[in-house]
């Protein structure tokens, strides 16, 4: 560290420095959330977690549980989660409008935490039970049954409402639960309160666990005041970086979309299909911009989340790190969506890797990669967007997903092939020319794949293929 950095780290260990640090943190979070009260609440929780004495109660995770779940319940009760609207729709269908959807969601959230806790306890008591050996399949089966019961025309009244509530809670929490269940197999498993405190932790995120699970959090928590100050310094730097990226994204959106006429790829496909002819260079520009915009936005947002975690004293790895330097397909995912890739590796890749094709290294690596990048990727996005059910119905929910399924399949094949090449001794390029070629190939490929993976569900696979062929002049 330079002398200036050392002085800064020393300054934020004293009370005046801390006050300035947290005021600045509140400003950073406010820029991201654009909600003053929410920013105060999140930063208040982070400050409380960072500076609370490390008592046994805190070490066992009770403070994290209290802070995270209080904030979750506050978000649910004030209707700021994406779950309120789909639940309101089903309550309306079933003429249960007298019931407050936010209260029901809060009840569902607490109930799901109870269910998760029971499953964690059972996984310890009977680790060899089929359900505990295959927790994802179990919960997918439960969720699938609940999804059918919640679909319009399959069940009615209270059965449909409770089934839908379970689907929404699973959609929101299932990946947190999977990481917690994986931790139960460890010789040094984390306490239950800490596990449940990581379900939508106070530093933010989505249905994807940013910061992974309790196993990592125990290892990365600052243990001394100097360690805390250094972690907070890194958090502040990352927060400023994420803010810079956020402003860059907004500036480029204004310039490229509002001034030059580029569009997001789903809008470009829609315009192409409606015969509203546009020059092909503009269409290419939109495809490349959509991918770059996505990478920029996810880096700004994800690193903002991790910055708050670091300010709370957790030395978490960055959410996105120098994506333009990617040299292979897996490197691209590691750099752009670090925590998503970690989830897929932990839940899909590792079990497949240890279970199948042990005698065939190439096939083993390819299959495990396919299970993560193909099956896991598709499943994650299907589960995440399952709240579209009341709007679309069961059949359309599945049918409209086929484009993303295609995207996952092609992506998995590409990443799997890239992995096998490395196993065959073809090393990632190190020369300037080689790195430039890798950049063009990787970013060109993922930009074109964005045509199929834009997640809008607006167009079918055939229509998107037409647009792709048109881009190449056919």
């Amino acid at each position, binding site marked *: 560290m330079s002398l200036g950095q050392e002085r800064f780290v020393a300054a934020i260990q004293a009370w005046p420095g801390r006050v300035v640090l947290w005021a600045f943190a509140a400003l950073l979070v406010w820029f991201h959330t654009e909600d003053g009260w929410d920013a105060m609440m999140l930063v208040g929780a982070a400050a409380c977690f960072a500076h609370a004495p490390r008592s046994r109660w805190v070490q066992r995770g009770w403070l994290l549980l209290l802070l995270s779940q209080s904030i979750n319940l506050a978000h649910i009760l004030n209707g700021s989660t994406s779950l309120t609207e789909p639940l309101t729709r089903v309550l309306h269908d079933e003429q249960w409008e007298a019931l407050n959807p936010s209260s029901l969601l809060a009840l569902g959230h607490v109930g799901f935490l109870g269910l998760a806790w029971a499953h964690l306890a059972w996984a310890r008591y009977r680790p060899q039970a089929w359900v505990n050996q295959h927790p994802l399949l179990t919960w997918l089966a439960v969720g699938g049954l609940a999804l059918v019961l919640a679909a319009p025309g399959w069940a009615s009244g209270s059965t449909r409402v409770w089934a839908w509530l379970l689907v929404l809670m699973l959609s929101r929490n299932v990946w947190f639960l999977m990481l917690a269940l994986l931790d139960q*197999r*460890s*010789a*040094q498993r984390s306490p239950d309160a800490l596990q449940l405190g990581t379900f939508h932790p106070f530093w933010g995120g989505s249905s994807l666990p940013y910061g*992974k699970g309790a*196993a*990592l959090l125990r*290892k*990365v928590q600052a243990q001394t005041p100097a360690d805390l100050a250094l972690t907070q310094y890194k958090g502040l730097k990352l927060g400023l970086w994420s803010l810079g990226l956020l402003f860059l994204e907004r500036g480029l959106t204004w310039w490229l979309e509002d001034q030059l006429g580029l569009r997001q790829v789903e809008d470009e496909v829609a315009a192409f299909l409606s015969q509203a002819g546009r020059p092909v260079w503009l269409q290419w520009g939109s495809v490349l911009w959509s991918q770059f915009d996505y990478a920029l936005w996810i880096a700004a947002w994800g690193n903002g989340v991790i910055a708050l975690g670091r300010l709370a004293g957790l*030395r*978490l*790895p960055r959410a996105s*790190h*120098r994506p333009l330097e990617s040299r292979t397909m*897996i*490197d691209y995912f*590691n750099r752009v969506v*670090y925590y998503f*890739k*970690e989830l897929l*590796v*932990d839940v899909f*890749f*590792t079990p497949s*890797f*240890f279970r199948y094709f*042990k005698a065939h*290294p190439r096939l083993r*690596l390819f299959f*495990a990669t396919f299970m993560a990048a193909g099956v896991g990727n598709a499943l994650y996005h299907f589960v995440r967007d399952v709240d579209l059910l009341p709007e679309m119905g069961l059949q359309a929910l599945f049918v409209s997903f086929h484009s993303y399924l295609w995207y996952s399949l092609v992506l998995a094949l590409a990443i799997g092939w890239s992995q096998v090449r490395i*196993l065959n001794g073809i090393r990632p390029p190190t020369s300037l020319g080689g790195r430039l070629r890798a950049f063009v190939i990787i970013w060109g490929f993922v930009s074109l794949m964005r045509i199929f993976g834009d997640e809008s569900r607006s167009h079918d696979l055939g229509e998107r293929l037409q647009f792709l062929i048109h881009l190449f002049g056919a």
Partner: protein
Amino acid sequence: MTDDLRTSLRERLQGYLTNQGDSAGFTDDEALFTSGRIDSFSLMQLVLHLESHHGVDFSSVNFEPALLDSVDRIVDLVAKR
């Protein structure tokens, strides 16, 4: 033999760290995987390397990342194969 293994492991682990933009050094007893310094996918690459080059059979142990967390632990594991 152990020194050679230790050296080659250190080079491999340093490569994983460098790829993640982490240029800081590490000690032989430092936790690298459970601390999040090296990602899960690199852990699987290490597993593949240990199986194919050092004859470690992970089916005989209940695998968890902590088993390969540091240079010292990996050397112990290879020695016990």
